[in-house]
């Protein structure tokens, strides 16, 4: 429940302000009956709200019926709108909620969040969109079988509901250094020209998982498994692929 503070915009007032902003943006002025129609309420409910907003210095009556935003009102409105949009997008793009639900929930939530929470949420949102690590994080989230049963990607972390493996602290080795049966996450594929191209084309890309299945009796080549494929790779070529080994949890 929101607390009613006479000097602060209430939730419903913010909504009104948002509507006025949008109407003014589209038509230059907003009339009471336009606001009423946009919000789906009676005209009678609009007027007290407008008077309160005017008291707060957010709007002004240009003529008896026409309402415009003050600079202060505009500033507030923009902020509110941005927050609204952010939340909607957060629900839709990050959490994967359907658009209609996202709208509704964003509307419901936007007034209860403090400025501080909003700020941090915004930064988190930006991180997920902009930083490469964030993007990968987001992708892993979207492909995690716990929310996407059709996904296969994360079987290394989750198998039959158990957390199977976790990464060892950052120690980078080459595939050739793995022990038979050991897995690793690819960090880099070195080399130039056809050899590297071939490795990449087969799907040995950074952030994929590679497992060393066995070594030939003569010590070379190596038999590796990844992405559902099994390949034979000479030690020399395997040395081009750097991995961080996994550790069974």
């Amino acid at each position: 429940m929101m607390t009613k503070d006479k000097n602060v915009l209430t939730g419903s007032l913010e909504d009104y302000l948002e509507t006025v902003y949008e109407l003014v943006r589209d038509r230059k002025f907003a009339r009471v009956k336009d606001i009423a129609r946009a919000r789906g309420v009676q005209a009678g409910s609009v007027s007290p709200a407008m008077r309160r907003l005017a008291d707060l210095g957010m709007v002004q009556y240009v003529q008896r019926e026409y309402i415009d935003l003050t600079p202060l009102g505009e500033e507030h409105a923009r902020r509110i709108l941005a927050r609204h949009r952010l939340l909607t997008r957060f629900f839709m793009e990050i959490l994967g909620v359907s658009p209609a639900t996202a709208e509704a929930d964003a509307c419901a939530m936007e007034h209860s969040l403090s400025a501080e929470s909003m700020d941090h949420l915004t930064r988190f949102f930006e991180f997920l969109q902009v930083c490469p690590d964030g993007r990968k994080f987001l992708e892993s989230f979207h492909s995690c079988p716990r929310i996407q049963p059709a996904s296969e990607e994360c079987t290394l972390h989750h198998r039959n509901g158990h957390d199977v493996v976790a990464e060892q602290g950052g120690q980078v080795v080459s595939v050739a250094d793995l022990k038979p049966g050991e897995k690793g996450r690819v960090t880099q594929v070195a080399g130039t020209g056809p050899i590297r191209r071939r490795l990449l084309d087969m799907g040995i890309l950074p952030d994929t998982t590679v497992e060393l299945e066995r070594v030939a009796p003569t010590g070379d080549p190596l038999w590796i498994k990844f992405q559902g494929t099994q390949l034979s790779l000479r030690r020399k070529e395997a040395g081009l692929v750097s991995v961080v080994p996994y550790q069974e949890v």
Partner: protein
Amino acid sequence: MDSESGPASGVRVALAGNPNAGKTSLFNALTRAHQHVGNYPGVTVERRTGRYTFEGVLYEVIDLPGTYSLTSYSPEERIAQEELLEHRPDVVVAVVDATALKRSLVIVAQLMQLTPNLVLCLNMADEARRSGQKLDTELLSQLLGMPVVETVGHRQEGVESLRRAIHHVAKRRPGPSRLVLGERLDTAIRALEARLVSATVPVERARWDAVKLLENDPEYTRRYLERGGLFAEIVKVAAGERERLEAATGMDITLYMTECHYGFVDGLLREVVLRQPREDARAVSDRIDDIVVNRVLGIPFFLLVMYLVFWVTFRVGEYPMNWLEAGFDALGAWVGRLWPAGSESLLRSLIVDGMIGGVGGVLVFLPNIVLLFLSLTFLEDTGYMARAAFLVDRLMHRFGLHGRSFIPLVTGFGCSIPGIMATRTLENERDRLVTMLVVPLMSCGARLPIWMLLIPAFFPPGWRAPVLWAVYTTGVVLALLFALLLRRSVLAGEEAPFVMELPPYRLPTLRSVLGRAGQRAWLYLRKAGTLILAISVVMWFLLNTPGDVIFSSDDGLVSHAEARETTAAVGGGSEVQNPAERARLEAAERLRNSLAGHIGRLMEPAIAPLGFDWKLGTAMLGAFAAKEVFVAQLGVIYAMGEVDESSEQLRDALRADYSRLTAVSLMLFLLIATPCMATVAVMRRETGGWKWPLLQFFGLTATGYLLALVVYQVGTFLS
């Protein structure tokens, strides 16, 4: 059969896709018997074309070499690109292994940049289904903008649907490309594409060229720079775009583009895969591998398998081979009877001795060849070959060869011809050439009669087995050394990365195995057979055309036959009473005075330093046709009539005439030099030219000559 009715006669279809995706079985299923297998000129890559008719329209199909990607790094890829870009097939079928979708769809993404007329063929659909995988093929078809057909190539399932889909794509107008590589990359490509189009590059090529230039493909970059002007400008623009992309993403362009392609495929699969294949889908296959590639059991098992292949080829093949031999003999006799008995007709001799004898001599190997190919095809189709290559790669690699070189080399112990043909499994052209060139050094079955004749003649019992072993080993060692030498000089170059797929074990259908083996056998018959027939005739001619007719011993050499003849002429009488004996003696004299004999005597100065004389020279000439002929020729020369290698008289005669040192020198020479003409013929066919077979022939002959020379001279000096 091929009706050319219908407006779209000769619709051209290309099959593209990864190796190991069953493309070839699908090609066979589509085209059935109407195929032609050849070579791309100058390279060892196979060119397979065929045709079929559907709803009155003729379709010409070309099976492109299997590739994982369409870069310019290997001849296979270059050829695939060329076929797709220069010859512009009307429809391209992307054949994909349905059990390895993620990796296989990447080439589809690349193909989408090359042409809009695509059909996606999910092959091995039965295995995919069995592994639990479920796909929404409707949706996939929509998202890709092309028909999607599920097939099981080696069981001919889904082939009609495939034909229908091809027909559909051939007729319709293609829609816009559904390939999405990400906004950044797509924008860059489009920008370059626009530039290319305005520089009058044809629209169909522009997209592909843009991608290649952006990728910094060496072939395309070079070509565009060469053209200069506007085109060189574009290369610079591409470089700029590339730098921008690399800076923005922190990845090099190759990685970035691959990631984008995989991203597209990932997104696609996420939408379309209704159920993932089970984790343990490969369980059975993996269990088998635990034994087959075991640290301890792996190599012994491999040796066992090799031995079995040999055994099937030679022991089992012996029966039909003997039948064929008997058959040809009978044929020869039957044809011979068309002339009156004792006839000296040249035509009869030409047909019976020359043609039937010559060609027959080669054709008797047919059962062995067929069995060998059956075994190898079976091993290849089950997937075992890949494991074998995995096991022996290290040794092979030491000598500049490839793991997959092992099988062709081992095959060469039986006969060079299938050995050379078996190199087709080698992807890299250089590896393939090197292997092909050294195969003849693996002492083949045809040389065995020679060893069986010479070794017992010149070595005491205790030495015989070791000497035979030494002969074979020398061949192997030389083969490896030559390979190394070739790899370091003439055929040096970047090694093909040994990145070899290890597919799960599969049980091939009888039909597919027989079909492929039969195809190879037919080719052996046809090509090698025509050339051999021709050369047989030439050899016959040389052997039967008299030089001078007079019996004389003016060259000072005394042979047994001459001695006997002279004795008889002088009146010793008793020795040459037997008319059969006389006939044999006459035959020997005739040989001595034939063109071949003359050539032999002309050769003498050249071969004397090796310890050989004109008789051996003449026999070696015959051995060019087929190595066993050496033994037969010697027999004729020594007037024993028709002999086989267990003939004691011949051995005695040889021992009397030549020293052990000569024998050693002779064996070395025959091991190494003058690969038989069938070998030359097959080399010519497989390499698409004369350069390599001739190089091989002269190289090996020169080496054999030198080694024999050194051995003989040093040996003479030491004794």
